């Protein structure tokens, strides 16, 4: 929104948000936000500096938890657990981001520019959301009988004589983790990218054509820059989800692949809340940094 419409309004209705009723109306959301987000966050930050034993938290101030997370990380011969875990988490984030971006962009492009009738467009868009009618975990688990050692894929491959032995890396591997992530989260790319593509003024594309731009040039110089907001929003969704995930990595990776979320979960289940809190604070800081970097590329508030 630009500021020009408000300046043209009469003086009496200027700054409509400043009346008392408006503050009251903003209060519920603010209260919810403070109560369920800011206060817990502050508590987590506080607890991350506490000490603990087997059965109780000991209020105080210690950097012990942070130190123990990075214990052994000065060692150059082998990576410490924390760095290794983050490295594997980053690896999945990057892979999943790249694949969902390309797939999501292609699907949106098809929906936005190739499908002419808006009825078919809506229909196809709804089709994309069908997988979301069942829960995440079920969608994930349904891969297991398909990819397993005696699963459908392996049976077909062996039956067709393509391979002699069942392929082992289909399940409980990096491959299956990335596959599940892509399956689960491509939609989060499609929606914002499709949305920003639909706002592109078609006459711009015609203009590019008229000026003699090739299809690739139009794509690269017109469509992609105009979809930037959608791409960034989709990227934020996908990256934050993958960074914090422990269920998908657990189920599809056969619990053998480290993720920072999994470490936090294990620590909370052993009542090591301060350690888990410290880990959560570090993770949050990292994710916020990534989001900050992404939002430098585009002013989301301006574009929406």
């Amino acid at each position, binding site marked *: 929104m630009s500021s020009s419409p408000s300046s043209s309004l009469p003086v009496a209705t200027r700054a409509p948000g400043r009346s008392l*009723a408006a503050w*009251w*109306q903003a209060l519920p959301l603010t209260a919810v936000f403070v109560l369920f987000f800011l206060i817990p966050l502050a508590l987590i930050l506080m607890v991350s500096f506490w000490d603990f034993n*087997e*059965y*109780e938290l000991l209020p105080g101030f210690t950097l012990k938890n942070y130190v*123990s997370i990075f214990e052994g990380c000065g060692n150059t011969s082998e990576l410490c*657990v924390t760095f*290794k*875990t983050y490295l*594997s988490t980053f690896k999945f984030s990057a892979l999943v981001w790249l694949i969902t971006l390309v797939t999501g962009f292609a699907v949106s492009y098809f929906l936005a520019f190739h499908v002419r009738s808006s009825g078919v467009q809506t229909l196809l868009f709804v089709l994309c959301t069908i997988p979301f009618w069942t829960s995440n975990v079920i969608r994930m688990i349904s891969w*297991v*009988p398909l990819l*397993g*050692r*005696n*699963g459908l894929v392996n049976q077909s491959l062996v039956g067709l004589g393509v391979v002699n032995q069942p392929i*082992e890396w289909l*399940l*409980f591997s990096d491959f299956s983790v990335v596959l599940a992530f892509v399956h689960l989260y491509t939609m989060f790319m499609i929606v914002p990218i499709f949305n920003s593509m639909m706002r592109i003024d078609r006459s711009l594309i015609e203009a590019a054509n008229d000026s003699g731009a090739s299809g690739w040039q139009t794509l690269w110089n017109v469509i992609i820059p105009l979809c930037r907001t959608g791409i960034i929003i989709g990227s934020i969704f996908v990256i934050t989800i993958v960074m914090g995930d422990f269920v998908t990595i*657990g189920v599809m990776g*056969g*619990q*053998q*692949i*480290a993720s920072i979320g*999994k*470490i936090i979960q*294990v*620590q*909370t*289940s*052993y*009542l*090591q809340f301060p*350690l888990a809190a410290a880990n959560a604070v570090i993770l949050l800081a990292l994710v916020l940094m990534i989001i900050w970097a992404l939002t430098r590329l585009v002013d989301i508030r301006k574009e929406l």
Partner: protein
Amino acid sequence: MSDSFSDQKDAVTGVQRRTLLKGTAGMAGILAAGMAPAVHAQEKIVLRYLGTAVNQDKAIAEKFEKDTGIKIQYVAVTTDDVTKRAVTAPNSFDLIDTEYFSLKKIVPTGNLKGIDVKRIKNADKITPLFTTGMVAGKAVGDQGTAPKKVIYLEGEKSKVFAKSPTQFMSLIPTVYNADTLGIRPDLIKRPINSWAELLNPEFKGKAAILNIPSIGIMDAAMVVEAMGIYKYPDKGNMTKKEIDLTIKTLIEAKKAGQFRSLWKDFNESVNLMASGEVVIQSMWSPAVTAVRTKGIACNFQPLKEGYRAWAAGFGLPATLSGRKLDGAYEFINWFLDGWAGAYLNRQGYYSAVLDTAKSKMEAYEWAYWMEGKPASQDIKSPNGDVLAKLGAVRDGGSYEARMGGIACWNALMDENNYMVQKWNEFVAA
């Protein structure tokens, strides 16, 4: 065109909606302020029973309600979460069903009340395995958190364990068993008799281990000893060096591709085994039974180094009083009275008071489950599935053979925090 039209409409409905919102907010306030329903006097007792899903059987709750009129409300969470709730929210349950090794975390908080054995009818009939650590007159392995080390409290409101028997028990035992490796005999095709086989490269990519650190590390320790790498003074209470060694062994095996998967819950282990993803893994007895009821061969394989045992029991929260406390005692007494014991025995667990359970079981059932004799007729589970055909013998044989073969107990180590940290290293390796 359409834009300006919708703007107008918005302006009209917008105003209406806002005034409406203000009105409803006020109404809601009035509604919330009063008019809560009146409290009933002398209503039916409802006991909130916190535990893992293992013992929380619908049939048990129904039978108990029929017998006494007291309602059981199950709160099913994982083993780790039972401990977490007992420590952090002791008022959220009226009866806790937890494992003895968790007591080292719960009792020091003072959230449990000692159970007065004078109010427990069958207290003196509880199997000596719990009170003195004996089976058939012989002492069994007591490495780890053996129940006899933590079963007595110094007083009703004590936060420390008593060294010798007292009037107050921390937990009244309910079920227990001895765990070992589960195997697929049809896919392995040779006898397995040692824990060392779990890391045998022959089963590369077809082995799995439990991903509950405090239990998984015990299985790993059994393997380390069986491989002859090291003999622990106490597997259930390792030093940092011993933990390092155990985890190192696991990491080396993992890097060599030994494990197909790690598993965390019952169903995962069943699926891994039933689908043939895994042919050898640490496993729980009812999970083996579950694989078998699918018609797939699966053995709960007795091993020469012995078993890793576990035991669970009922505890009472410190704040419980009045009618609910009486109801909880009534439930514990009812539980030890035979019907529930027989029910659990038929699932392959063992009950705390054997005599009463025996009186509620058929002779042929008792002979199969407890005496290790061949089944003289088909053995059925409590819900009617056939578990063993005529002539079959229970894995591990009789009660005395199996429980007498305990090598160690599930444990909580002094170095637990360090152990969990190292375990994460194994998962990340």
